[in-house]
């Protein structure tokens, strides 16, 4: 199980000659029950992989949208363990959709790497992205995750040069996450023309599928990225839906799943008619 689920999913996407659609939401935003109902609805809305953020008090790489989501998550009482509980509850009804946890190192460090890895595997987590743990500092975490078959998914950025690439893809599995803009989440837009060569370079260096995120908000942007990458990640645009629906007292789950399905459609049809 675990990272095999990621490999199987990307193999299936390749067979269908389409890019995957990866969604990001924050655990506990605005509360645990809503997050669980969103998670349960995402696969049917077209999510091929799910990234689930666990909140941190000081999310240094996030733009205002996800900063506020983290604050709402913490306010609702969400914790790292609470996030694992959400994954376990999701897994009761879905054995196929890979779940990647995404967040910052300190909550995981505080929990203890071995304890976290064991609990995450048991809950049904397939991969982990830690924004503030570059490869130079990742070995102890990699040891713990590899022992449980969980993929440590690495970020590559526009600033990652050729000399650094081998370091970045060392001990990584599942896929590589290309941060398509130098900046925080949800602010700048990805430039599809610059994304294509970067994706190619990363595929070659890692031998893994490449997902692209950080600058994709609209169906058009998602489709442009889906033409060249193995997956397109959308986070802030979905979190914005959650925020506005919660503020307007609308049905959060319905609104965010509607948005997700629009984006999924764009990703799924991006390569129609191409080989």
């Amino acid at each position, binding site marked *: 199980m675990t990272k095999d689920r990621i490999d199987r999913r990307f193999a299936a996407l390749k067979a269908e000659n389409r890019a995957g659609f990866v969604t990001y939401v924050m655990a506990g935003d605005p509360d645990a029950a809503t997050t669980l109902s969103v998670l349960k609805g995402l696969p049917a809305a077209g999510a091929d992989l799910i990234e689930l953020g666990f909140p941190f008090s000081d999310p*240094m790489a996030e733009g205002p949208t996800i900063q506020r989501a983290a604050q709402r998550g913490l306010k609702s009482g969400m914790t790292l363990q609470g996030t694992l509980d959400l994954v376990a509850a999701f897994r009761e009804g879905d054995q196929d959709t890979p779940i990647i946890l995404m967040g910052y190192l*300190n909550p995981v460090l505080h929990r203890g790497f071995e304890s976290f890895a064991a609990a995450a595997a048991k809950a049904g987590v397939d991969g982990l992205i830690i924004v503030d743990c570059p490869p130079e500092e990742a070995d102890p975490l990699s040891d713990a995750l590899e022992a449980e078959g969980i993929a440590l998914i690495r970020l590559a950025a526009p600033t990652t040069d050729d000399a650094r690439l081998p370091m970045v893809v060392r001990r990584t599995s599942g896929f590589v996450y290309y941060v398509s803009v*130098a900046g925080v989440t949800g602010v700048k837009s990805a430039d599809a023309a610059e994304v294509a060569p970067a994706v190619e370079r990363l595929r070659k260096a890692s031998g893994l599928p490449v997902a692209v995120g950080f600058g994709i908000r609209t169906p058009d942007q998602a489709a442009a990225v889906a033409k060249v990458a193995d997956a397109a990640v959308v986070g802030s645009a979905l979190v914005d839906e959650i925020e506005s629906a919660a503020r307007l007292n609308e049905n959060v789950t319905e609104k965010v799943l509607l948005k997700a399905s629009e984006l999924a459609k764009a990703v799924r049809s991006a390569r129609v008619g191409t080989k």
Partner: protein
Amino acid sequence: MRLEELVNAPAKPNDYSAYPDANGRFGDFGGRYVAETLMPLVLELGKAYADAKADPEFQAQLTSYNTHYAGRPSPLYFAERLTEHFGGAKIYFKRDELNHTGSHKINNALGQILLAMRMGKTRIIAETGAGQHGVATATVCARFGLPCVVYMGATDVERQKPNVFRMNLLGAEVRPVTSGTGTLKDAMNEAMRDWVTNVHDTYYLIGTAAGPHPYPVMVRDFQSVIGAEAREQILEMEGRLPDAVVACIGGGSNAIGLFHPFLNDASVRLIGVEAAGHGVSTDKHAASLTGGRPGVLHGNRTYLLQDDDGQIIDAHSISAGLDYPGIGPEHSFLHEVGRAEYVSSTDEEALAAFQLCSTLEGIIPALEPAHALARVGEIAQELGKDKIVVMNLCGRGDKDIFTVAEALGRKI
């Protein structure tokens, strides 16, 4: 100490000044915990700093600005009346509040801006708590003609208005940060976000001896001028080394600058004073070593105030400059190996020391060193009459008069 504690205790290094290692590690602390986008920049900065450090021309340039622009060396002053008042060891002040801009922060700002220009960077950003580092950065940016953006927590903007105006006069843009609780840690988060967004031209001038490697070692090196001068001055004035050196600690830049040149002088006690706010047993303090545990924040592994889920807890101190939930990694290391001692002073104790220093020595200290001074009396008494203690008076108190007046219930 129980046997197992002795066995498990970290080995005592032979040379405390040999840290960090090539990866920026002080024992278990330090490192480079930043997002991948910043990692190449942090590595480039490490190389550029190593190169500058070894370049006599860079060092000569820095020394020249330290002398003619900042006014170094700062005096070492025998605080005779405070010594008499406490009736113990002779108390000396290292007068870093007499530097240009009124604190030790100029030492580091000068060093880093010379490095930034050497690297061809054209825009400077900084974070600030009390505003002392912001003022120092705005000052050197004005001097060298570089645009400057200073991130400052909205709470701090409110309680340090004179420094905000000072930065504006110097041509810097002050951006209030409202995320989190609007204090130093939030300002640092926001500065990191700016840096990651403007990687091509921007230099992040960090003010304390924390952050990803090479910042802790770089800031320490630039601040070590404090301890190097103090060591030479006390040898000249007293013919011997002091028995203790004392400094306040938020992130810990003035303390590490004072301590570092004394690290291998085994007879010299190194004492850092954290901010205990309302008391370290309350939830309103900023004493990371006394009340925190190791974790990762702002690019380095160090002691942090955090809850059971690893969320960072907001610090509290009457002094905006000490109001930080972490501490530089080298202090965490010196604490764990036992080379330095760390104690704390409450808001109330610092206020009393602030007034005592003003009336007995004619020096209005900043609230930050007032925390150190609040422990110096008992340290002097404990050491006894024939001993010597040197305290770093790292900033002057003009910026704090409104805060102090309010705390004393006075309207000005």
